[in-house]
C-alpha cells in the first residue's frame, strides 16, 4: 500500500507540475500566446494583435498576447499584468510590443523582451530575476533590466523633459522622434522585502551606462549617440514622467504633461530657465477646478482624444472622458463597450518625424 501511495503521489505531482507549467509559460494552444491581462485601461488604448488588420479598443481583463502592439493616445494609460505578476504600464502616446515572454513558475524564472517605438513605459518586475533576462529596446537604445523598477519615455516628451535637466540642457543635439529617457526607480540597496537592488544597463552609440541608484536617469539624444548620465532627475522631470503615466493624477495636481506641444529645442545657445507656463487641464465634466484647454480643445496636439495613426473609430477606454467606470467583459474588436462619448475626436496632426536637429551656433 505504501508503494502504491508513492506511485500515486508521484503521478499526481507530475500532473500538477504540468498544469502549473502549461498555465504559466506563454505558450498557447491556438497559436496565440497569452502573456497577461489588461489590468487598467484609461482613455484611448488599443491593441493590435499580430497579423490583425487593425487595432481594437482595449478593455479591462482582456487577454494580452505575445506580439500584441499596444497603442495609446494622449492622456491615456494601460497597465498590463503579466503572468509572473510583472507590471508593464504604458503611458501616453505610446506604441509598445512585448516581443518575448517565457515564464517558468516552477523555477521562478522569466525572460522577457519588449520594444518601445514611442511613448512612456514603466516596467516593474513581479519577482527577482533569479535567472533569465529582461530587455527593453527603444529605436536608439537597449536597456538591460535586472529585477527592478524602471520607466522611460521615447519621443518628444523625452526631449522636452531632458531639455529641462541640468545634466543635459538644451544644447545637446536631439532627435525628438527617437530621443530616449530612462529612469531607474528602484529598489535601492537597502530595500526591504527580500528584494534585490535594481539596476539597468543602457546601451547606445556603442557605449553602455549602468545605473544602480533610484531616481537616476540616462538620456540618449539621438541615434548613434552615447547615453548621457546617469544624473539625478529633477522634481520637474519626475513630475513630467509621472504625468505621462497617471493622466488623471496630472489633471488633479495640475502637472504639465510633456510632449503635448511640439518640441522645439531652445535656440541661440541659451538655456530656457523660465518655468514652464502653468497648464490648466480641465476635467471634462467641468466639476473640478482648473478648467482650461483640455480634452475637448480642437487643435491642441495630444489633448487626449486624437490618435495620430489610427483610423477614425469611437474612442474609449476605461471610462474615457474622465468617467472612471470599470468594464470587465472583453468585447469583440470594433465594438467597444467603454466608449462613452459620441463626440467626434478632434484631429491630431502629427508632427513630421524630424531629422536630428542641431542648435544654431553649435558645431
Amino acid at each position, binding site marked *: 500500500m505504501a508503494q*502504491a501511495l508513492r506511485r500515486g503521489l508521484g503521478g499526481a505531482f507530475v500532473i500538477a507540475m504540468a498544469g502549473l507549467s502549461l498555465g504559466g509559460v506563454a505558450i498557447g494552444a491556438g497559436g496565440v500566446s497569452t502573456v497577461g491581462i489588461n489590468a487598467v485601461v484609461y482613455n484611448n488604448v488599443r491593441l493590435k494583435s499580430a497579423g490583425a488588420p487593425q487595432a481594437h479598443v482595449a478593455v479591462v481583463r482582456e487577454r494580452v498576447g505575445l506580439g500584441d502592439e499596444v497603442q495609446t493616445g494622449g492622456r491615456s494609460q494601460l497597465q498590463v499584468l503579466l503572468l509572473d505578476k510583472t507590471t508593464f504600464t504604458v503611458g501616453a502616446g505610446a506604441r509598445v510590443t512585448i516581443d518575448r515572454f517565457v515564464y517558468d513558475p516552477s523555477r521562478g524564472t522569466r525572460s522577457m523582451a519588449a520594444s518601445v517605438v514611442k511613448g512612456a513605459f514603466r516596467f516593474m518586475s513581479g519577482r527577482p530575476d533569479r535567472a533569465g533576462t529582461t530587455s527593453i529596446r527603444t529605436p536608439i537604445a537597449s536597456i538591460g533590466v535586472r529585477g527592478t523598477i524602471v520607466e522611460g519615455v521615447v519621443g518628444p516628451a523625452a526631449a522636452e523633459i531632458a531639455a529641462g535637466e541640468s545634466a543635459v540642457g538644451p544644447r545637446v543635439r536631439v532627435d525628438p522622434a527617437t530621443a530616449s529617457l530612462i529612469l531607474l526607480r528602484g529598489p*535601492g540597496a537597502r530595500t526591504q522585502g527580500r528584494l534585490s537592488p535594481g539596476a539597468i544597463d543602457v546601451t547606445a552609440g556603442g557605449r553602455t551606462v549602468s545605473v544602480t541608484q533610484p*531616481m537616476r536617469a540616462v538620456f540618449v539624444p539621438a541615434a548613434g549617440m552615447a547615453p548621457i548620465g546617469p544624473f539625478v532627475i529633477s522634481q520637474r522631470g*519626475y513630475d513630467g514622467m509621472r504625468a505621462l503615466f497617471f493622466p488623471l493624477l496630472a489633471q488633479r495636481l495640475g502637472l504639465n504633461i510633456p510632449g503635448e506641444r511640439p518640441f522645439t529645442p531652445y535656440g541661440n545657445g541659451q538655456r530656457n530657465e523660465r518655468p514652464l507656463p502653468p497648464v490648466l487641464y480641465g476635467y471634462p465634466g467641468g466639476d473640478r477646478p482648473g478648467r482650461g484647454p483640455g480634452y475637448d480643445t480642437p487643435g491642441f496636439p495630444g489633448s487626449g482624444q486624437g490618435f495620430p495613426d489610427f483610423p477614425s473609430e469611437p474612442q474609449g477606454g476605461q471610462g474615457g472622458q474622465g468617467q472612471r467606470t470599470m468594464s470587465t467583459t472583453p468585447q469583440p474588436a470594433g465594438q467597444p463597450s467603454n466608449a462613452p462619448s459620441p463626440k467626434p475626436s478632434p484631429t491630431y496632426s502629427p508632427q513630421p518625424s524630424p531629422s536630428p536637429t542641431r542648435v544654431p551656433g553649435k558645431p
Partner: protein
Amino acid sequence: MAIRNGIAALCLVLLATPVMAQIDPLDELDSLAGASVDPGAGLVFARQQVVRGDLIGAVATTERIIALHPESDDALLFHASLLCRLDDPEGARAEIAELPAGRGGDWGPVVAACGPGIRRRG
C-alpha cells in the same frame, strides 16, 4: 493491487485538482485587477500584500488605485511609504511634494516608513 494503485492515484489527482484550479495564473491576475477598483478595499489588499512581504505587488496595486482614483490622498501617501521601503526616499519626497498644501490623508504609513522628516515637503 493494480486496481488499488489506480484508485489511489485517481484520488490524489482529484485532490490536487482544486489546488491546480486555484493557481490558474490568469484567474489570479483577474483577481488582482479587480482588487483595486474600490480605493478603500484596494488599500486593504495592498496592506495585506505588504504583510506578506510582497512590496512590489503592493506598489502595483496602489498604482492601479492611483490610476483610477487620483483623488485618494491615502493611496498617494501609501505609495510614497512603499517607495521608502524600497529604499527610494527621493522618489517618496518627490511624490509628497506633488500633494496640494493642506492635504489630509493617512500619514501614518509614510511617517513610519520614511521618518517624520517626510512631512517637510521636498
